[in-house]
């Protein structure tokens, strides 16, 4: 389980996130929702050990990420927002590089590359240099690269942004497969229909604070709305819920 408790993060005098707490369990997909600049990426960066929280704790299977970042990172597969590939390397070389850094042996790495190549439908691009790849192709390679070591926890920062229908469906199927394998997935998104289709529970972050957390029916009920999108507006923009121009 990923246990996030009372996370605070300041950059100089600016408070990026304040008192964020939630849990994400194995076998579930947890959605982290929020407007741009709300603090989703900062929260994820603290979870995967790239930023140090000003206060608060992140425990992954009971291990404090501040104390043993590398141990925690072995358990995580992370797709950061805008993380790019090495364009002079082929898709296979990109994935293999990260697999080697994760400490996989040659055979295991080869098997995993073949597996994710098949799941994500990358057979025709796997040995091509990634320069000139479409956004969808880049996303598939980045995703395969992030989870090539079969991690127990998968953190994805806006994975379906700007993808075509086919790639979005491939990503969605992959997330559902991972969930069925008992893995925990946390993903941030703006896309309500994606969240609705995939997430078991969600957390809504607004201006650095977690304004709501729970199952989707529970969130809808607490916002006294009928759809997740309306509930999202209710919790993400608490002072301006009816002004659609804000969106």
């Amino acid at each position: 389980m990923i246990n996030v408790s009372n996370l605070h993060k300041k950059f100089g005098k600016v408070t990026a996130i304040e008192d964020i707490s939630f849990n994400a369990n194995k076998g579930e997909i947890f959605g982290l929702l929020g407007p741009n600049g709300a603090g989703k990426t900062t929260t994820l960066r603290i979870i995967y050990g790239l930023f140090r929280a000003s206060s608060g704790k992140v425990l992954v299977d009971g291990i404090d990420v501040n104390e043993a970042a590398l141990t925690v990172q072995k358990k995580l597969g992370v797709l950061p927002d805008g993380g790019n590939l090495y364009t002079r390397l082929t898709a296979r070389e990109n994935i293999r590089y990260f697999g080697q850094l994760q400490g996989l042996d040659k055979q295991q790495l080869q098997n995993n590359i073949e597996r994710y190549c098949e799941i994500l439908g990358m057979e025709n691009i796997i040995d091509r240099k990634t320069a000139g790849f479409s956004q969808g192709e880049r996303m598939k390679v980045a995703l395969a690269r992030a989870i090539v070591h079969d991690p127990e926890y998968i953190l994805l920062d806006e994975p379906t942004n700007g993808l075509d229908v086919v790639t979005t469906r491939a990503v969605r199927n992959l997330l559902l497969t991972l969930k069925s394998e008992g893995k925990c997935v946390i993903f941030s998104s703006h896309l309500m229909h994606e969240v609705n289709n995939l997430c078991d529970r969600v957390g809504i972050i607004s201006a650095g604070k977690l304004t709501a957390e729970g199952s989707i029916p529970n969130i809808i009920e607490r916002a006294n709305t009928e759809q997740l999108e309306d509930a999202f507006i209710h919790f993400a923009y608490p002072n301006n819920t009816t002004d659609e121009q804000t969106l």
Partner: protein
Amino acid sequence: MYSQVIAVIKKECLDAFRDGKSLSTALLVPILFAAMTFGTTTFLVSMKNDSQGFTLAVSGSQYATPLVNWLEESGITITQAPENARQKVTSGELDLLLNIPKDFVDDFRQQRQASIELISDHSHTESQAKAGQLRQLIAHWSAKTGALRLITRNISPNIAQPVSLKEINVVSEERIAAKILSGLPLTFMMIVFVTGLGMASDMAAGERERKSLEPLLINPISHNLIFLGKWGAGVLVTAIISCIGIGLQFISVKLAPMTELGLKVNLGVSDYLLTLLILLPVMFFATSIQLLVSFFSRSFKDAQTYSGLIMLLPVIPGMYLIFNSSSAQLSQMFIPILGAQALLVDIISGDSTSFVHVIITSATSLLLALIFGLFGVMILKREKTIFS
């Protein structure tokens, strides 16, 4: 742990060798430097050959036949001065004109001081070298004639020359050759500093700019090892290209017509290997400072701007050594780059190289490389490096 560092080294080397533009630029630099060394030496030889004998226009040669004969014996070809010779010197058609006036004969016979005129353009460097040679020859002939006159009067010529200065040149032919090749150690340093520059910028600032640094840092590998891997890759590529570049320098010195200058350059395989041994710690130092600056830069363009400053680092001690050609001193070994360059001057000069000096300068370079490396890791660890 080591397999992770090796994975980083392999990836960075593969990436660098596939970056055709950067690689060809890195290879082009040593080739150009080698061509420059060969060209400079050949030019010096041609200058020396030109100055050994030259044609001199003389007006009134019939009035000073012994002097003209002396000049001819000394290798100067004498021609009759054309009309308007003085004007032709002014216009540059003629380098030099020696004018012997008619009253030279009378003055010479009467043993009065006879005058002759040397007409040249003092702003013309090449003609001044010839004029200098001519002045020496005439002064020598004048002294010799004066001495003969004193002897006929039973006076020792030594009376006219109370002091005799004998110049003893203790410099070896190799040292003179080294003086001519004084820019070579600086060239070696430039090769070391320039070849890895593009790669370091790409590995650090390029990685930041392409936004591939964040995914890399999320892997379970410490920042220290990532830096170490990139450092190792940078040193490896710099070493490979430097081996080729410095090898080309040795070949061009070997092919250059140094013997025609009467100079000896004994640069063999052992000198080549010793040069590489001395430069290896400098490669660690250069790559380390390049990575530090590059991680500090926000973009590839930023890194290239700062790189210009890094390229100046070897120039300062290099220029100092060009003008100060004494053998390497112990105190120089504690100054990075300078110590190594001073040792390279000794190698080119054919002087023996102190093993202690090599160890001290190598240790100094490696220590500084390590310090810059640690600063580089600190910058890599900054959160700002990820989000800015």
